[in-house]
């Protein structure tokens, strides 16, 4: 069986190194972008987009979410609306 697992494993070994490269580049991009003289809003939005994108990459490839059953995706998505609800609602206060 190990041999089979071998071949199987090699077949689908996810593109770990590529993702690594992407993460690295995006981190550099972020640092660069952060020091551009743009209006704060643009900086914030741009940086958040990049950060979330990176986070998604980690979840999909390093945490293998991409190869997990869809129902796990649903499970994992549960807290996300709650996060948004809390922060957005309270922000309207101040």
């Amino acid at each position, binding site marked *: 069986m190990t041999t089979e697992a*071998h071949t*199987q494993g090699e077949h689908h070994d996810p593109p770990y190194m590529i993702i690594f490269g992407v993460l690295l580049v995006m981190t550099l991009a972020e*640092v660069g972008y952060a020091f551009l003289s743009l209006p704060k809003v643009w900086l914030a939005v741009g940086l958040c987009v990049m950060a979330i994108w990176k986070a998604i990459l980690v979840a999909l490839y390093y945490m293998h979410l991409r190869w997990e059953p869809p129902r*796990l995706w649903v499970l994992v998505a549960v807290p996300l609306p*709650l996060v948004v609800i809390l922060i957005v609602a*309270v922000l309207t206060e101040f």
Partner: protein
Amino acid sequence: MTSHAHAVHGDMMVPDQTFEPGMRIYNMKLGMWVFLLSEVMFFTSLIGTYIILRFAHPDHFADPGVVLNVTLTAFNTFFLICSSVTMVKAFAAIQKGDQKGLKLWLLATIVIGAAFVGIQAVEYATLAEEGFVPAAAEYHAVGRAAHEAGAAGAAGAEAPIVGGPLYGATFYTMTGFHGAHVSIGVLCLIFVLIRAMRGSYTAADHRGVELIGLYWHFVDLVWIILFTIVYLI
């Protein structure tokens, strides 16, 4: 993917077949995911507080690089990302039953993880002596530039105080609890490494490695967010 590869052989990496089909992943993996969801909420309360307080009192917070040392932390971020790669490498290795690879990559992960914590400790120390502290009463951060200028900090003392108490409080709470998570992760990794030495993991059953991997990547993921909103925005 691989779990399907193994599913054929009915090994430990798939759910117990005697039960009604559930999540289609084995219990401990499901448990770890569920636990990570609660971690998401925990960090939400801390990061949310930061976002809200910063939004309510922008004057308390400094622009990137003024108080915090972005270059240093950028390196640290780089480290943490590396440690994620070494971690998946360890996982990929044991999937193929490669014991040596497993141990080497685990060791690498531990070393890099420890380095991250170490650098963070150094960062804290310097920041603290620059007057950037959580306690509202003692807060008197005056910004890196001023410090580099005034050697003995004498000139620094005259420079205007940057930001306010909320800055220190939120900064240390968020990064501190992240650091704690990394440290716990390192300890667990050491534990896993020891078991790996004993050869407890095989291509058919390497749940321990996968679990600690999930946790480790999650901590990395949190840092990606933290680094952006704390150091760069």
